[in-house]
C-alpha cells in the first residue's frame, strides 16, 4: 500500500512539476511583458475569477455535466445493444456495420445546427449530439470485443455442450469488457465535446454557453476559468471510468496507452 502510494507520487511528480513550471512561466511572461488581461490574463487572475465567481461557474457546469453523463450512459447502453446485434445478426453485420464505420468519417459536430432545426434549442439537442458522438466508438469497440473471442475458447465451450446463451454470458461478455472500457474512455470525452458544441450553437445555459458569453464580453479570465473547470470535470469523469475499469478488468492491464496515473 505504502509502496504503491510512493510510486504513484513518484510518477505524478514529473508532470505536476512541469505543469507548475509552465504556469509560473506564464505568470512571469504576462507580468514582465505587460500583456493585457483581455488577451491573456495570468493564471493568478484566472484562479481569482474561479474563486470569486464559483457559483456562476457551478451553475453552468451542472447542466453540462448532467447532459454529458446522460448522453454518455445512453451511448454505452445503445452501443452495447447494437454491438450484440452486429455480433449475432448477419443482416446488421453485413448491412449496417460498414455504414456505421463509414459514418465515422462525418465530422459529427457539423450536424449540430441540423439538430437545432430538428429538436430546437433546448437540452434535447445537446443530449442527442452527445449521444451521437459518443455512440460510434462505443459500438465499434464493444462489437470488436464480442467478436474477438479466441476460436479455440469457443470450440472448447462447445465441446462441453455450452449453449449460445452461455457462450455469450460466460465468454463473449467478459471478453468484451476491456474493449468496452476502452470505448467508454473515448466516449466520455466525446460526450463532453458534443454537449459543449451544442451549447455554443444554441443554448441559454451550460459551460459552452458561458464560454461563448464571456467571449462576447471580452472577459478572458472567465473564459479560461470556465475551460479550466470543464477540464477538471472531464478529468474526473475519465478517472472514475479508469478506476471502474481496474476493478472490472482485474485480469489484465488497460488496453489504451492514454492511461494516466491518477
Amino acid at each position, binding site marked *: 500500500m505504502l509502496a504503491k502510494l510512493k510510486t504513484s507520487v513518484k510518477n505524478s511528480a514529473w508532470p505536476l512539476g512541469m505543469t507548475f513550471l509552465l504556469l509560473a512561466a506564464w505568470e512571469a511572461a504576462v507580468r514582465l511583458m505587460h500583456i493585457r488581461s483581455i488577451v491573456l490574463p495570468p493564471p493568478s487572475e484566472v484562479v481569482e475569477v474561479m474563486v470569486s465567481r464559483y457559483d456562476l461557474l457551478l451553475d453552468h457546469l451542472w447542466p453540462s455535466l448532467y447532459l454529458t453523463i446522460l448522453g454518455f450512459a445512453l451511448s454505452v447502453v445503445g452501443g452495447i445493444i447494437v454491438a450484440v446485434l452486429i455480433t449475432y445478426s448477419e443482416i446488421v453485420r453485413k448491412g449496417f456495420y460498414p455504414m456505421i464505420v463509414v459514418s465515422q468519417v462525418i465530422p459529427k459536430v457539423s450536424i449540430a445546427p441540423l439538430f437545432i432545426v430538428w429538436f430546437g434549442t433546448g437540452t434535447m439537442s445537446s443530449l442527442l449530439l452527445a449521444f451521437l458522438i459518443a455512440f460510434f466508438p462505443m459500438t465499434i469497440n464493444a462489437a470488436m470485443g464480442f467478436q474477438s473471442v479466441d476460436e*479455440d475458447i469457443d470450440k*472448447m465451450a462447445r*465441446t*462441453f455442450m455450452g449453449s449460445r446463451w*452461455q457462450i455469450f454470458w460466460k465468454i463473449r461478455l*467478459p471478453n468484451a469488457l476491456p474493449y468496452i472500457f476502452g470505448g467508454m474512455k473515448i466516449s466520455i470525452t466525446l460526450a463532453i465535446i458534443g454537449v459543449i458544441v451544442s451549447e455554443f450553437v444554441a443554448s441559454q445555459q451550460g459551460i459552452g454557453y458561458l464560454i461563448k458569453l464571456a467571449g462576447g464580453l471580452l472577459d478572458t479570465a472567465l473564459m479560461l476559468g470556465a475551460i479550466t473547470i470543464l477540464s477538471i470535470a472531464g478529468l474526473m469523469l475519465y478517472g472514475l471510468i479508469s478506476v471502474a475499469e481496474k476493478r472490472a478488468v*482485474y*485480469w489484465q492491464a488497460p488496453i489504451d496507452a492514454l492511461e494516466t496515473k491518477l
Partner: protein
Amino acid sequence: MASRRAVSERDRTPAAKVALRLAEVRKVFGTLEAIKNISVEVADGEFISLLGPSGCGKSTLLMMITGLTQPTSGELVLAGSPISGPRNDVGVVFQSPVLLPWRTVIDNVLFPIELLRLPRAQYLDRAMELLKMTKLEDFAGALPRQLSGGMRQRASICRALIHDPSTLLMDEPFSALDAITRDDMAVELLRIWQANRKTVIFVTHSIREAAFLSDRVLVMGRRPATIIDEVRIDLPRPRQIGMTEEEGFNKYVRHLRKSIEASHVS
C-alpha cells in the same frame, strides 16, 4: 501398485469392451478429400495415439469424435451410441490450454460443470482433488496468467476430467511446451490415466511421445488421411521416462519412423 497392475492387465485382454468405434469414416471439404475410409476400434480404457505429420487430418478426425464436425460418410459410435454432437461423456484437451483469463484456476476447472448445468458444490471436492493430483492445489485461486505454460496445460487437463468423462480426447496438448516440461507432462499424464482409467485418444506428431504413452499407435498418412500402420506398444506399465533410453523402446520408435517416412514417399 497392485491396482495399477490390474489396470494394465485388463487393457490387454482382447475381449475388452469396445469404447469407440469408427466405421469407414470419410471427410470431404469441398473437392478435397481430407479423410478417407478410416475404421478403428478402441477398447475401453485403452490409450491410443494418432500419429502423423502436421496437416494430415488427425485433428479433423479428433474433432469428429468431439462431435463438433460431422463426417461426410461413415459412422462414429461412442459407448454404444452414435456421435451426433458434443456430449457429456467426453473431455477435450486442446493444443493451447484455452483457459478463461478472468477466471481463477479452480473456476476454470469447474467451467464444464457450469456449462453442463451440474451442481457446482458437488464437484468442488473433485476439482480440488484433480488440482492436487496435478500439483496445482496451491494455485486454485490464481489467475491463469500467473501460471507457467505447463501448469496451464495441467489445469486444462483437470478441466477435461472434472465431469468424469469416459473418454479423454487430446489434440497435441504438449506441442507448445518446451522439451523438458513436455517429458514431465507425459509422465504426469500416464499417472493421471492410471488413476482414472479413461479411454484416451491422443493426437501427436511426436514419435517418441506416441510410443511412450500409448497402448497402440495408429500412424496416419497424408492426404487423404488413412491409417497406414498400427503398432501395439508392448512395454510394461507404469512407464518411466528412463525407458526412452532403452533398446526395447527405440525399436518401436524406429518402426514408427519408418512407417511415417514410407507415407511421405508414396
